[in-house]
């Protein structure tokens, strides 16, 4: 090739050529991926790489925390039960097994009563002993409060076609022993009934006034029902990997810094049972993201202000309990689910580091960021009833959100990385009980 530069232009053009000849720029990482895909369409990702995908890793961590917390909570409750009922050995690992142990313990107490009665009758004749024993056994079999009342006035019982008449010559200690035995039986039956109710309503109390508490709960709280409330939260948000925000202005080598964001909106849900619930809502999420980008033409500082409209769908598991002094119901909830996030606004401001630009460049970043996003949520929160229709919630939560096109996660044509938020939330919720009326 032959070039003929005029004398006057030579230095100018030669200088430009010299400046640009040695210049190099780094393209986005996804270019190589595209070339590779074009040249080797059959190429699949190495098996190990999938485990390094941040969204998979984070989902795994979330699931692990969910299971770990669930197990820890179950263990905590079992220990409480064991302490309350003086169970010597705690070898069980599930609440159901603990319940079985409790019943066995109570049965042992129940079977001890006839022996006490027998001791009291040691001075009676053999015939009398037989009659009394038959009488007590019949009472035990019938085992109702009505029978107990009969015991005090009439001395005849009927069971299995056997008519047992208590001799009039029985001494008062014997009668007292009978009465005590039956009273004990009734008390045991009542305890069993209470335990059954406790199991049903999901309340485990440490209080000594168990009966009062159970009645209180029966009368005032039914945890199944609908709720709606207002929610707000503060979050830290950051990109899980650099490179999401690639565009001609910012370039490809971007370093994000975690920043504070806030969230506000409404929440509603339904407690399907005393333990399980489903929750949704509409949230306005304002994320602020600071970054530094290294492009072919400059180093820039920038700020992204992103506004998302989020619609989560979470499933809840509730561990209910009652405050021993205030008699207020509270519950610890673990929840997890998905959320859709729509990028409503994206204001991006950048400024070149050398400060030659007086004003930062501002533009709409929606062109470069995914508009429709999908995410995974996980969290723990705590509910406290301030009245039977109103409760307060506070908790921590985390979410990983990415381009909706990146689901399923193996869609490697999507190069944007997900963003992550971790934060706290609080809300006040109005609760309307539904389903069966409170127990009486």
């Amino acid at each position, binding site marked *: 090739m032959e*070039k003929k530069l005029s004398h006057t*232009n030579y230095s100018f053009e030669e200088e430009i050529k010299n400046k640009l000849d040695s210049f190099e720029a780094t393209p986005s990482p996804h270019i190589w991926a595209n070339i590779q895909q074009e040249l080797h369409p059959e190429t699949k990702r190495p098996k190990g790489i999938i485990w390094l995908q941040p969204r998979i890793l984070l989902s795994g961590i979330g699931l692990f925390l969910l299971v770990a917390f669930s197990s820890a909570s179950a263990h905590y409750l079992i220990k409480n039960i064991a302490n309350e009922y003086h169970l010597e050995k705690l070898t069980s690992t599930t609440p159901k097994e603990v319940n079985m142990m409790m019943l066995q313990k109570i049965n042992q107490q129940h079977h001890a009563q006839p022996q006490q009665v027998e001791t009291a009758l040691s001075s009676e004749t053999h015939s009398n002993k037989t009659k009394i024993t038959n009488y007590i056994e019949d009472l035990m079999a019938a085992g109702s409060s009505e029978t107990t009342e009969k015991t005090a006035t009439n001395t005849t019982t009927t069971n299995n076609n056997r008519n047992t008449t208590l001799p009039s010559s029985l001494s008062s200690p014997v009668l007292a022993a009978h009465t005590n035995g039956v009273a004990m039986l009734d008390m045991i039956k009542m305890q069993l009934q209470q335990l059954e109710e406790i199991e049903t309503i999901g309340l485990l109390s440490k209080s000594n006034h168990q009966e009062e508490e159970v009645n209180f709960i029966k009368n005032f709280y039914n945890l199944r029902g609908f709720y709606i409330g207002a929610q707000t939260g503060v979050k830290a948000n950051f990109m899980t990997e650099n490179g999401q925000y690639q565009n001609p202005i910012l370039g490809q080598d971007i370093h994000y810094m975690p920043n504070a964001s806030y969230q506000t909106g409404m929440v509603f849900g339904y407690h399907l049972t005393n333990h399980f619930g489903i929750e949704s809502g509409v949230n306005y999420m304002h994320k602020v993201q600071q970054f530094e980008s290294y492009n072919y033409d400059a180093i820039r500082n920038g700020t992204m202000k992103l506004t998302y409209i989020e619609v989560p769908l979470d499933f809840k598991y509730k561990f209910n309990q009652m405050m021993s002094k205030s008699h207020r119901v509270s519950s610890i909830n673990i929840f997890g689910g998905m959320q859709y996030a729509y990028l409503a606004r994206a204001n991006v401001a950048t400024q070149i580091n050398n400060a030659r630009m007086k004003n930062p460049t501002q533009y709409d970043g929606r062109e470069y960021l995914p508009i429709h996003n999908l995410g995974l949520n996980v969290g723990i929160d705590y509910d406290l009833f301030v009245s039977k229709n109103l409760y307060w919630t506070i908790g921590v939560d985390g979410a990983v959100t990415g381009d909706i096109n990146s689901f399923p996660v193996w869609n490697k044509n999507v190069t944007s990385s997900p963003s992550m938020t971790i934060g706290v939330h609080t809300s006040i919720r109005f609760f309307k009980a539904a389903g069966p009326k409170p127990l009486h």
Partner: protein
Amino acid sequence: MSSKIEYVTPENEHLVIQGCRSGDLTAQKALYKSMSGKMFAVCLRYASDYHNAEDILQEGFIKVFRNIDKYRGEGSFEGWIRRIFVNTSIEQYRKNVKLYAVSEIEDTNISNHDSNALDSLMTEDLLRLIQTLSPGYKTIFNLFVMEGMSHAEIAQELGISEGTSKSQLARARGILQTKIEKESSNLKISIKEK
């Protein structure tokens, strides 16, 4: 090819070329890693924006890998690759832009321009200013100044007359110099204010 090769060097160049010919992914990646920086700079000069430059880069590398059999070892390998990227850029330009004929004018005398203005600019700023030229001016300026092509060669490449090539180069040069001086002047004011 040894899987340890990550970048192309004069010593392993023939191995990389051989690997690329047989479709070896490691060789292709080594070539990409070694050349993508330089070739992306070429693409940025011709492209309208960053995304467009990436499109050219992607298309150019696919052409390189698919046509590497045609490289016979005559001339430098880098020069051969570079030519593919320039051609790809020109193809992109032809697809998207119509070259408007302008009246043939003589080369503009630029002796009155500030010769220090260019020195004060960073390479990145200069590149940005070149990108702002209209596609026709930019392509001819790049082909003439950066690729060293003559007006006859440019005219043949772009399907225009030599006169059009000359006039567009003159206008591109004038516009670019004005932009450079303006940028340089803004920079000086900014420094003084500080």
